[in-house]
């Protein structure tokens, strides 16, 4: 029997077209998903904004959707989210960049072969596990260092989210640094530069767009992170700069509402879509700008 089943030219052509159409439908699922997300967030969000003005939502400083008098100022949640993202950046960016430079410039092939899987494991650990780690390990350590630390606090959540984004930054930076051609490094050495000078003044600037994009993507991930911050940072939507206090992020609020018995269509139910819409827009803008930076300022094409 032939591998390519013989059949009439017409039926074969029909089959070809049918398969192509079917595959196109598969590919369109992703487009439909995007449209679905936008549609769901916008329609449900609009219902919410019929009862609460967008101004009050965006600039209000009190968030008490469950307690009378109900107030819907998203700033406390937004500030909480920023606080976590900032802390995660302080922890994750230097460590991630350091690991990325080490992987790409310093590690031997053998060491790379060991370190890469370790970072992949670190990246593959579910976020709920990081939340557990924050509660049972990081917070007790913080309490020893700063006795005024609350049981739920922003610092422990920020630290574990920082550890979580570390492997992502490391591997994206590694990829970006590896696009810089060997010849450029060799030119640096030929001029008598040390390894430090080649790495930090030639290779890193050459990959600056990719490195910057990795920071933005990682921070966007920190903003959308849910389980670790829900477990570790608490459920206390207040405006504070003290990282040892309990706060609430946008994502943690959405989980809090979903865990409770909220009636579909009620104003509490609609808040999670308004908050979700805001979250979606923030991460979308960050992701798009990261892609734009890579496209616009890339010095070397990947090899």
């Amino acid at each position: 029997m032939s591998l390519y089943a013989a059949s009439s030219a017409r039926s074969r052509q029909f089959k070809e077209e049918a398969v192509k159409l079917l595959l196109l439908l598969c590919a369109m699922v992703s487009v439909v998903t995007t449209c679905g997300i936008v549609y769901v967030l916008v329609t449900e969000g609009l219902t919410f904004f019929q009862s609460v003005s967008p101004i009050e939502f965006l600039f209000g400083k009190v968030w008490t959707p469950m307690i009378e008098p109900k107030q819907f100022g998203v700033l406390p949640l937004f500030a909480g989210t920023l606080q976590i993202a900032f802390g995660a950046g302080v922890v994750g960016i230097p460590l991630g960049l350091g690991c990325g430079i080490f992987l790409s410039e310093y590690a031997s092939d053998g060491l790379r072969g060991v370190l890469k899987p370790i970072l992949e494991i670190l990246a593959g650990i579910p976020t709920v596990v990081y939340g557990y780690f924050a509660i049972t390990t990081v917070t007790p350590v913080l309490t020893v260092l700063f006795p005024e630390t609350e049981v739920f606090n922003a610092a422990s959540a920020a630290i574990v989210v920082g550890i979580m984004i570390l492997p992502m930054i490391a591997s994206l930076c590694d990829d970006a640094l590896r696009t810089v051609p060997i010849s450029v490094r060799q030119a640096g050495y030929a001029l008598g530069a040390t390894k430090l000078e080649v790495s930090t003044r030639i290779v890193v600037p050459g990959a600056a767009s990719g490195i910057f994009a990795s920071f933005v993507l990682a921070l966007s991930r920190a903003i959308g992170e849910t389980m670790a911050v829900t477990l570790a940072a608490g459920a206390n939507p207040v405006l504070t700069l003290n990282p040892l206090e309990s706060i609430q992020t946008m994502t943690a609020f959405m989980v809090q509402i979903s865990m409770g018995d909220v009636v579909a269509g009620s104003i509490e139910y609609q808040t999670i879509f308004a908050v979700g819409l805001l979250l979606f827009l923030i991460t979308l803008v960050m992701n798009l700008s990261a892609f734009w930076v890579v496209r616009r300022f890339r010095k070397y094409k990947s090899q």
Partner: protein
Amino acid sequence: METTNAQSNLMKGMVRVLSLTGISRPVQNSKDIAEKESDFSVNLRWRRFKANAFRVVLIGTVTLAVMMLLILLYEIIRQGAGWLNWNFITSFPSRFPAKAGIWSAIWGSLWVITFTAIFSIPVGVGAAVYLEEYAKRSRLGNLIEINISNLAGVPSIIYGLLGLVVFVRAMALGRSVTSGALTMSLLILPVIIVASREALRGVPNTIREAAYALGATRWQAISAHVVPAALPGILTGIILSLSRAIGETAPLILVGAVAYVAFVPEGPSSAFTVLPIQIFDWSSRPQESFHELAAAGILVLLIFLLTMNAAAIFIRDRYQRRLKW
């Protein structure tokens, strides 16, 4: 004016000569350069010190990252290993830590992951084949591609909102295994597509051309040669994305998986819980013994994940070495 110009030219020339002699000296004289000709020195000692210090800092960074993983694993094993026994695995959740177990969570996870695989694999691989084999460099292909890379960056909890409105309410599937699996499928679809495309890209064009030369149609070439050749890479991507789905929690909480389920799902329309949600529930309780239960649950989850990752690495190594063109 003229004299200053000439002077500056002379100066420049001298500088050039001096610096040439300075650099062209053998390295063992670097000390002298640093001390005597400080204006034009290359100060190698200081620069080497800095370079070495930087290396130490980098090694410290990497060590710290590896330490984090070790501490994390150590803490989980220290707290959880004592609770990990057959009783823990085969019991349903309970108010009493000593009686609590993860039987319903394990089965829930297995149900969700099986249905996620059923929904996402055909669609994901199909989309990858279309984008890589049919729509390369077409406008529609570009549009879909940009869309996929954006979808990959959408926070997972947003997929939960989508699932809640579309699957749970509009399609009236309720808080069921099917709703959860459909939501998860949409979440991991970009990962499967990207990995499969990469695998398809690795298949050399000669394979396609050889098939065409023997009279194969496009689909025959793809289904009989290109996809089988790319299968190890595709499988690796699928396994890794499914292992991501196993650990994912937030979207399932939004579509309504609950923590306390005292039964094994009976079918696709049954209510369910999954391992990460059970772990979340136990971690969020104040009692120490529930934290230890959470650690035991995490151990089971990590064993699942490590097995899947090991399988992926095994497939990648075994087949990619054999299939070299």
